[in-house]
């Protein structure tokens, strides 16, 4: 086993789930062997690009690939949506990073995925199932058109609850409503695992706190190197400072200071907005020059922490 060519990161397949959500399958046989549920990678799409952390949604050891699910919200992720096609390569992909999620021997677990968080939740749900747990899957989306991986997720769950904010699919309500129902039905839930936007994970932690159910959340703050060198991803856990990249990304949801996390995620809101606007403007100019190219719609930028919906 010699590393050989570690420097070519070919996209071998791509799938579009909606206008904003897309899946990239990237070849990296060595990483596919090393990856465990809960870990993440840092990706640079081109030489001048940003380093962005993305949670590993799946890995396939026989195909030698890593799967990433990305939501186009900021400049980088929208640019990648246009440029990352099957057969192209990423400039850099490093990982797997972070401490793998400990998939214990809990007998009954609830696996909660919100939005993009559904993707990285999947390998954990599969892991719990393989360990013989009774798995209750709860996934939440804003609306029906954004739903993805429903069947894939359902296949490793004993019970499955789909929630949409507007009730266009599954039950109407947030994932916390799903958790409430699961807790009401099962008195013996040993663990809840939640991945999604911080505000959702905060809601999940609050929903389980009174029941004293162990709740694990996966944090994805702003990162630079992902190796514990810069401290940009520091989070407050029970009053202590931890680095999500090397001490996490999984933490006890009941101890996480989510307000601090959400505030820190807005650190570059102004620069992010400026970059996105400038990029959209450039695209529009290009499209004027080339009338056959479809116009790029500037989506209204959501709060930056939406950016991190699990991915």
């Amino acid at each position, binding site marked *: *086993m010699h590393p050989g060519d570690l420097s070519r990161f070919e996209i071998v397949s791509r799938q579009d789930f909606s206008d904003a959500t897309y899946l990239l399958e990237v070849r990296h046989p060595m990483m596919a062997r090393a990856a465990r549920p809960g870990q993440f990678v840092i990706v640079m799409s081109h030489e001048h690009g940003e*380093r962005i952390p993305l949670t590993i949604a799946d890995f396939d050891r026989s195909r030698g690939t890593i799967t990433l699910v990305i939501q186009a919200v900021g400049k980088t992720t929208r640019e990648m949506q246009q440029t990352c096609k099957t057969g192209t390569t990423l400039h850099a992909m490093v990982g797997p990073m972070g401490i793998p999620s400990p998939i214990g021997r809990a007998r009954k677990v609830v696996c909660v995925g919100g939005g993009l968080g559904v993707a990285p939740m999947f390998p954990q749900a599969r892991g719990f199932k393989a360990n013989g747990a009774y798995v209750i899957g709860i996934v939440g989306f804003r609306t029906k058109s954004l739903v993805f991986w429903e069947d894939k997720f359902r296949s490793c769950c004993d019970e499955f609850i789909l929630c949409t904010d507007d009730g266009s699919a599954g039950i109407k309500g947030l994932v916390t409503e799903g958790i409430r129902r699961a807790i009401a039905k099962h008195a013996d839930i040993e663990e809840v695992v939640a991945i999604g936007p911080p505000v959702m994970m905060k809601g999940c932690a609050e929903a389980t706190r009174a029941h004293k159910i162990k709740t694990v959340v996966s944090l994805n703050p702003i990162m630079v190197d992902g190796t*514990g060198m810069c401290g940009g991803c520091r989070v407050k856990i029970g009053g202590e400072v931890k680095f999500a990249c090397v001490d996490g990304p999984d933490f006890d949801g009941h101890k996480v200071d989510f307000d601090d996390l959400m505030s820190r995620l807005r650190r570059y809101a102004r620069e992010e907005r400026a970059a996105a606007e400038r990029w959209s403007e450039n695209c529009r100019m290009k499209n004027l020059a080339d009338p056959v190219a479809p116009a790029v719609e500037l989506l209204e930028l959501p709060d930056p922490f939406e950016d991190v919906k699990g991915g």
Partner: protein
Amino acid sequence: MREQDAGARAKNFAEVACGYSVEEALREAERCLLCPDEPCIKGCPVSIDIPGFIRKIGEKDFRGAYDVIAETNLLAAVCGRVCPQETQCEQVCTVGESLEPVAIGRLERFVGDAAIQNAWGRVPSVAPNGFCIGIVGSGPAGMACAADMAKAGCEVTVFEAFHQPGGVLKYGIPDFRLPNEVVDAEIENLRKLGVKFECNTLVGRLFTIEQMIDEMGFHAVFIGTGAGYPSMLGVPGDSLNGVLSANELLTRCNLLRARDFPDFDTPVPLGRQVAVIGAGNTAMDAMRVCLRLGAHKVHCVYRRSRTECPARAEEVHHAEQEGIEFHWLTAPLAILDDGKGGVRGMRCIRMELGEPDDSGRRRPVPVKGSEFDFEADQVVYAIGTNANPIIGQTSRLRLNKRGYLETDGDLATSMAGVYAGGDIVTGAATVIEAMGAGRKAARSMKAYLGIRDAEHAATGGTLFGIDLRERNFARIRVA
């Protein structure tokens, strides 16, 4: 040596010190007495034959001068710029007893730059010896170790987690002190020696140290992963937006080119009034980077006095010239909140020097009632680092109680064939000390592999009747 004017340079990232012209170099070389006791060589962590290369400069044989330096140091252009010569070779220079010491660092840089310009790679013809060496981290320790092992005939692969090699020389030290082109040129020299660089590779997580030895065919491994895990102050306001580590600021600016945002995608916080805590080289770099990014005012807050300040003298001098305001004997108490999650200012207290502490420096003690506030919208921590936990989390290597890798006097870790050096062993230190550690580990690795070392003849002796210089035929796992 000529320098860019302080007013102009505080607005650009071009190098501050312009380097010697040929005439200046010859004039400076003449000042060396070529004294017989050669104290400068002993003052150098890698024992460069300093009088030897200065003599060659005097003879106008610059190529010869480079060959003398390259015997022991492949990174002349880097070390000439970033070594703290005033506490090493130049401190003990005989000329310095009565006059200014010979500017050894500047002469070394002159030779190193000439080598880069004229592409004088020294590519000795080495017979491959069949040993594969894995090096974790491409900073100064890893580069120095790689050079020595490659020169000994080993097949060397250097693994780097970032997308570019160079470690702290790239992400940490800014271009106005050490241009990235100089680092790239030195890396190119290593490539000419046959060293392979594999970037985007996080050792420990992608594969472990154990796997390198057991499965990947490396006969010996050197770990030089450097400093990590920047310390936070632990005062109120630590996690406000606008508070960041010098490592984050420098990495964004130097490696990811945030100074060219939005042409490069990585942003960097732009403070108008910046307070930098600490007064080491990293702090100086952070302050001067903030000035160049457009800060109106940059404060340095340091709890000891100027005498104890650990930065290179030239850096403090340059920082002062550029208009950094130094608050010596001042300790931060709190970072003040602007009510919107950002920074409004700092609360500090004056200190005075008391009795000497463990480090031999006089311990600063707070002066009662001397608290004061000043305005700032960005705070940068440059107060040192703790051990990076990744290798410890992913291997069975023994750590000391502070979390750094434990090594013996030969820089061997608790696992046979695995050596370590630089900041991951000692905690934060200098570039040249890391290079010294890389070279020392290389010597030990050669002895371990039984490679006869022409430069440093094996100490000899026998073990169980076997000549210690002979090759090892079996690897014994101790850990």
